[in-house]
């Protein structure tokens, strides 16, 4: 007991660089505040207060990040703080900025109440689906405004996740970002059963993935005697430690990460969850979770396992190929727009994984650029999906999109542009993203992988084109869906996504330079 006390006295609080971590503090602090708003404001005022609070939070966090990046005493490569658990280096600045802007767009979609009167979220989540009360709630105007604090918590978790320099911090961040997402998936106003199914599925599989991750952390602790990425890196650099622990730990850890990034063959949840979730949440998941998960993968691979890359390279080659093939081939058979984009995201995850396993600075910057490009395209694409509706809500079946160009030329044109970006046609960000990732891969001698990726891109192009064919070349069905006139929020979100997709395609120099500004520090 005395020794314990003595130890406690010697324990010192770690140094905290408040400016460096201020974006996280702002987001998580505002999330707590947002819970209080939920508790104390009357129901009628909550929506407005939450929207203002959430958007303001993101802007303030972004400003704080800008101050940090521009501050004189910030070294070029960034800082490590909180006793080495959080690194705010150049990649993190890039990823945080991407996450915040993407989060801003997603919050705009979440906040929209004009496309679906009252918003895309259920008025009272406790009502059983299919009952009289459920049908009544679908017509009511209110929504569960808890979705705003949940979004902020998830966003905060994502930000910590990409910055975490030790595996335990990473695990906690993973839970902070995942748990709100599980809940948000189940909040759709319409098709409650599908939505709840998505939530349960995501939760169950996600819990397994977290368990895998944690088990991996435990084994790696056994291997390296530490959960810090830097210590693991040192330990892998040729010692007589147990290789079994390393391989098993790495494998389990990576499975957890790949699950979150919806890389095939760990993608099984993706189509169901994307389809069942409220579309704004799908947009948030598809864009932000992807950025966060790959941010984490990049850091783990680059920092902790670079020296053991010979051991795992082949496995991740296989995973990348599997992901591209699964995404491209199964995407062909989809008849639902949201499921189609889900499989497309699996294929894109394969491309991103190629960039991640290059372990070169070109690969790092290429992957991060790709993440940014993909995120904005996806947000805008789901924004458009939320506009095409019939009496039962969103009309996501592909056959319902026939002849959309005739009814609503602008919506069809924007969606076509976004699909071309996903297919990687030049003058869109998707092309530049593919180019930088494949160039990095070829430089690291991964020519076969690049060829497979290009063939997979060609296959995937088929299902994007099919939607364009439907929208432009087919006659509209007589009882087809209408395109809602988007409210200001959704318009801004879609415009932002589409504009950035165009800018990154035509003038990518700035973003490429930024993505290549520096590497990880630890």
């Amino acid at each position, binding site marked *: 007991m005395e020794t314990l006390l003595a130890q406690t006295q010697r324990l010192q609080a770690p140094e905290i660089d408040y400016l460096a971590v201020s974006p996280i503090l702002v987001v998580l602090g505002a999330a707590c505040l947002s819970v209080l708003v939920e508790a104390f404001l009357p129901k009628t005022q909550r929506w407005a207060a939450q929207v203002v609070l959430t958007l303001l939070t993101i802007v303030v966090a972004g400003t704080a990040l800008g101050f940090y990046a521009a501050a004189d005493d910030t070294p070029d490569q960034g800082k490590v703080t909180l006793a080495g658990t959080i690194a705010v280096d150049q990649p993190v600045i890039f990823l945080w900025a991407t996450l915040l802007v993407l989060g801003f767009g997603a919050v705009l979609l979440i906040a929209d109440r004009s496309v679906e009167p009252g918003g895309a979220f259920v008025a009272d989540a406790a009502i059983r689906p299919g009952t009289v009360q459920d049908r009544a709630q679908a017509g009511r105007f209110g929504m569960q405004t808890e979705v705003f604090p949940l979004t902020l918590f998830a966003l905060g978790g994502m930000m910590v996740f990409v910055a975490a320099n030790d595996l335990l911090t990473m695990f906690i961040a993973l839970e902070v970002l995942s748990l709100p997402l599980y809940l948000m998936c189940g909040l759709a106003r319409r098709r409650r059963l599908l939505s709840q199914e998505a939530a349960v599925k995501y939760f169950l599989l996600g819990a397994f993935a977290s368990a895998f991750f944690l088990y991996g952390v435990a084994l790696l602790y056994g291997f390296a005697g530490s959960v810090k990425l830097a210590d693991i890196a040192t330990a892998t650099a040729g010692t007589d430690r147990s290789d079994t622990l390393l391989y098993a730990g790495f494998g389990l850890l990576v499975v957890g990460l790949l699950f979150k990034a919806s890389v095939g063959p760990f993608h099984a949840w993706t189509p169901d969850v994307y389809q069942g979730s409220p579309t704004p949440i799908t947009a948030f998941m598809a864009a932000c979770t992807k950025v966060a998960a790959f941010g984490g993968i990049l850091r783990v691979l680059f920092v902790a396992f670079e020296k053991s890359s010979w051991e795992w390279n082949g496995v991740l080659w296989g995973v990348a190929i599997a992901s591209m093939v699964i995404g491209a081939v199964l995407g062909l058979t989809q008849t639902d727009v949201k499921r189609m984009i889900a499989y497309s995201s699996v294929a894109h995850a394969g491309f991103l994984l190629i960039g991640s396993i290059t372990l070169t600075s070109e690969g790092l910057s290429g992957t991060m650029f790709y993440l940014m490009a993909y995120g904005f395209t996806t947000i805008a694409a789901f924004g458009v999906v939320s506009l095409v509706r019939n009496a039962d809500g969103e009309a996501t079946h592909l056959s319902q999109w026939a002849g959309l160009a005739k009814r609503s030329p602008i919506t069809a044109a924007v969606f076509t542009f976004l699909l071309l970006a996903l*297919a990687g046609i030049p003058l869109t960000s998707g092309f530049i993203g593919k180019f930088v990732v494949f160039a990095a891969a*070829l430089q690291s001698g991964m020519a076969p992988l690049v060829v497979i990726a290009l063939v997979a891109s060609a296959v995937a*192009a088929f299902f994007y084109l099919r939607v364009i064919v439907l929208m432009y070349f087919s006659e509209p069905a007589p009882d087809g869906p209408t395109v809602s006139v988007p409210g200001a929020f959704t318009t801004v979100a879609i415009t932002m996504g589409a504009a950035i997709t165009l800018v990154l395609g035509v003038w*990518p120099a700035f973003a490429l*330079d930024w993505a290549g500004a520096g590497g990880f520090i630890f």
Partner: protein
Amino acid sequence: MSWTLIALLLLPLAGGVVVAFLRGNDRLAKAVALAVSLVELVIAVFAWTGYDPSSDERLQLTSSADWIPAFGVRLSFGVDGIALVMIALIAFLVPVVIGGSWADKLPEGRSAGGFFALLLVMETGMVGVFAATDVFLFYVFFEAVLVPMYFLIGRFGGPNRQYAAMKFFLYSLLGGLIMLASVIGVYVAAADKLGAGTFDWATLVTVTRDLPLSTQIWLFLGFFAAFAIKAPLVPLHTWLPDAGAEAPVGAGVLLVGVLDKIGTFGFLRYCLPMFPLASQELAPLILVLAVAGILYGSLLAVGQSDLKRFVAYTSIAHFGFIALGIFAFSSQAGAGAVLYMVNHGISTGMLFLVVGMVMARGGSRLIEDYGGMAKLTPVLGGMFFVAGLSSLALPGTNSFVSEFLVLVGSYPNQPVYTILAALGMVLAALYILWLYQRVFQGPVRGTALVGATGGPGAVVDPERAGLRDLNKRELAVLAPLVALILVLGFYPKPVLDVITPSVGATLSEVGVADPVTQEGK
């Protein structure tokens, strides 16, 4: 810094955007489109006069600006003689096509403004492909030009247009993506050697030609895949009959007249100079494909029952000649091949337009629905005959010069392939003359002309008998084509003067001994 090419690039794009906003007013949209394309033609003439064939500068009218410094990508434009004649061909064909499509019946609900806007946007893309001297930029244009063509076929094409548009796009995209692997590969090779990556074509040539043969072969095959699909070489040709048959006539002219030339142009600009060793190594393979294309395309053209597919198959045969001329590695055959690229654009373009005029009158694409049409529309018949003769390379027409040059130039290096290719000329006479006979000669017959009940010798359907011959607009569209067919048939020197030095420079980079002395040309 020359602004001519930049003007050539920006004008149609701006015009296309303007026309797209004139969708409510079809007449105005057409007038603006025509005006823009004519101004473009004037600028192209200006570019032609600004080009000095005798200069040592390989690329002229150059301009360059930074685009993506991180990868050494620049917005660089410039032309050699080969690119210049292709740009001139584009600038000539687009107003012709606009005139030819003036009164097209579009599918229901489609506006003429949209059609002409897409044509103009495509013109920018096509000029860009030939004018880009940065390989990355070339790739961007190569892919970007697919999009307007895809919409032209898919929105304005025939009954099976969705399938055709999709097939066209996927074939080209697949080829393009395989090429992208090589584009990146070339970039990586340059980065390894020079320390900093670049996409500048002239710089890349100096790097890639010294690569070992095995590397060259892989990179060559990447480019070749894209170009062989574009140019269609058998067996990668199957998209062209579908796309050509379903495309609206105007878009079809540009498809076979210009877009497919991107492939043969690519052989000359990228495959040969950048990978000389691989070009020599793989030339036999390509020659086999070329000759196969000539014979196979000709035979299938003989057997066609559909007028537009017929034109598409004749093109496949012609592309065989062009590929033969390029990979025979002699300056005569090379110059002939480039001249063939121009002539094919003119004669096949005219054939396509005339076929479109036949179909506009008869309302059917099937050959068997026509017969004895020359009795009803003699001038149209005559025009078809002129286009046909040019297509089968009758002496006195433009195609004769180029086909002759290709065969004469190829013979010393490749006698066997040349003799086989010459058989294609016989088949060409067969498919053209037989088609002319079936559609235009004999008594008036066929359901398209005499109605469903009519057999041979039946009384001509009085309503159908009112089939008008060519009107003034159609004559005005065809007249410049006929003029060029004859002028280039008798006096091809101005074009050959521009082409020959560039072809000579290209072949000297391959480093094969030229069997023909440079004198006498």
